[in-house]
């Protein structure tokens, strides 16, 4: 195996470890941090089912963002849905599509292809807002621009492999299957492919140490996920209970 294949193998193991380990750490941290007070943004659902519906509409439709700003909503939603389709499409590199549970993988392929374009349009729209709207420019740091450029580069390098200069996807699949089964296979030395994969690994590494934490974080947002029932049910965090016990002494 070439040094290149070995480096990419190591890179992906490393990126995967950071992504999973980092997310695990952050999710555990969010999970363990108590919510001492009921702070749902009202009007809020008064039942658990209601909260599930509220969260679902935030996550699937970005409903608060829709209320807030139609431009950010359209670009942001376009980008996220495209990303989802593309990620699903990429399952074909990791799974055995002869198995029945992966029956949907071939079905998403055609959508996944065009999603690259909508993803680029969405991201470009967001980047344009960041540069053109004075208020958004004010709150942006270099990392905010770079994040968009990184995603745009990933999408365009991927799209170019599909539409401009094909890569040997059978070998790519063999390489990733190999990584998963510890039966290492060489990676084609295509520059576009190497750029694409390098950027994806970068994205995986920065995921748990950046604002991309909004993905797991939204599930933990108390203003959105709490049931509005403070009068009906007493809510008490462990540290507040301790405080109370101490006082009672």
């Amino acid at each position, binding site marked *: 195996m070439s040094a290149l294949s070995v480096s990419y193998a190591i890179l992906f193991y490393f990126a995967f470890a950071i992504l999973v380990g980092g997310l695990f750490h952050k999710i555990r941290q969010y999970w363990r941090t108590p919510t001492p007070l009921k702070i749902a943004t009202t009007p809020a659902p008064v039942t658990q089912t209601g909260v599930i519906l509220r969260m679902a509409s935030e996550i699937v439709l970005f409903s608060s963002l829709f209320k*807030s700003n139609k431009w950010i909503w359209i670009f942001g939603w376009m980008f996220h849905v495209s990303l989802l389709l593309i990620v699903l499409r990429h399952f074909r590199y990791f799974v055995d599509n002869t198995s029945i549970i992966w029956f949907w993988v071939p079905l998403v392929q055609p959508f996944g292809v065009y999603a690259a374009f909508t993803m680029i349009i969405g991201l470009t729209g967001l980047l344009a807002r960041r540069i053109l709207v004075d208020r958004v420019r004010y709150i942006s740091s270099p990392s905010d621009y770079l994040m968009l450029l990184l995603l745009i580069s990933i999408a365009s390098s991927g799209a170019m492999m599909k539409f401009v200069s094909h890569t040997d996807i059978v070998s790519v699949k063999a390489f990733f299957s190999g990584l998963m089964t510890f039966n290492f296979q060489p990676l084609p030395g295509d520059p576009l492919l190497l750029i694409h994969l390098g950027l994806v690994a970068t994205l995986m590494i920065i995921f748990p140490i950046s604002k991309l934490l909004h993905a797991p974080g939204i599930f933990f947002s108390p*203003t959105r996920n709490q049931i509005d029932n403070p009068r009906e049910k007493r809510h008490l965090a462990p540290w507040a209970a301790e405080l109370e016990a101490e006082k009672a002494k």
Partner: protein
Amino acid sequence: MADFEVPELKETLDIPKYVDGVMAHSAPYTAKAEFQEALGFPGELPENWQQVALEKMTDLRTRYRSFQVYLDICVKCGACTDKCHYYIGTADPKNMPVARQDLLRKVYRRYFTFAGKYFPKLVGAVDLTKEVLDDWYSYYHQCSQCRRCSVYCPYGIDTAEISMAAREIMDSISIGQKYCNEILGKVFVIGNNLGLPQRALADTLEGLEEEVEEDTGVAVKFPLDQKGAEILLVPPSADFFAEPHVDGLIGYAKVFHEAGASWTMSSYASEAGNFGMFIGSYEVMQKAALRIRKAAIDLGVKRIIFGECGHAWRVAYAFLNTLAGPFDFLDPRYPVPQHICEYTYDLIQKNRLKFNKSENDHMTLTFHDSCNVARATRMGDKPGGQFDIPRAIIKAACNNYVDMPADTIGEATFCCAGGGGILTDDLMEIRVKGALPRMQALKTVSVEDGVTHMAAICAICKSQFTKVIPYYGFTMDQIVSVHQLVSNALVLTGATGENDSSENDEGNTEKE
């Protein structure tokens, strides 16, 4: 009239282009050492203040999930940037909710995140310096904790949570706000924000009894510290004397009178407002809340009802059970606590109150949804009851009612700009400028629908509006209490005064 420029009311509300630093000079007076110490905070800036502040930040991050999650997950999408009334009114970019959060977030990143430790420039992380601290003091006292930004953020990030944490961090290094912390001192020593002692309260209430009897010929009582009463009413202390607040108190008393209820107020817990929330301190907030529990136990009441007050209703509705519960010694048939509007509304539903609506015919009303009632609480058992119930009461008491534009009421309501510890003369400029969006909406309905008066259910809103509304060409008396409208129109059983309508009295005498 003012030593600053009062924003102009135009045809529509414009989102301004930002102008750097225009409100950097705005900062409230700091509290003296003795007041800080009385609340358990240091009186002097510790030498290692950076370290103490960072430790406090860590303490809060491990105790409040909201704080930790919100510091991490903002994507700087910008959706909240045009949502804060203080940004709209001042154009200072640090009054954009996300930028206000960033004042704290950039320090969090610098000391507690990988990217901020090793690549501070890349992610906009900065050291905690004196300049940063000054910015904190300035801009975290230009947030009324109104939660409007939280409605519009895709992740529900609530800048109020960040502001509260920031104020608590500053208190931990001796930097407290004079207005909030001195008021809290009064609550703990005397029992209310205004420092009215028992004697003064008793006199005031006696005076009110005389006044109402003179007006109506009916002996409406204003009981204080009456053991064995069924209901404890906790009004904001402004209700005891200030206009238009006191007219609201008269309204509550008349409603209780007509319902034949046995009720009392308490001189020990004569304050609905809980400034502990403004400074973000669970402990201080709890200490104030426990006074209400103690008063309820000492007086042996069965129900607790809160008067018209916004942030107070948040602490009461959303936090009281947590801070001072469980209330298993009260009558389980009623929610604890209840809002006076829920109480009055219930009587209206049951046809127990009779109104002569024409008493309010000289006014065309609109209703200002108080920020914390709208976005942090509920009334009744359905989501949104906090919007419907007060309106239903107004409509039961008045013939002429018009809503302000839809994007300025309900959950989208604009704060009065005096909430969250901002209602102090040393912050007049931010108070006036922050009121712009509400004033604009009021102007719209004044011009288009002939609205003459705006009703509110919050002591802070009423005080703030009566003070700032003249800057925009309105007059103080255009602000009314919701229960003032009830008071005007409620037909009292056996009344002889101008409210008299004895032929309609039957059916009003049934008692609870």
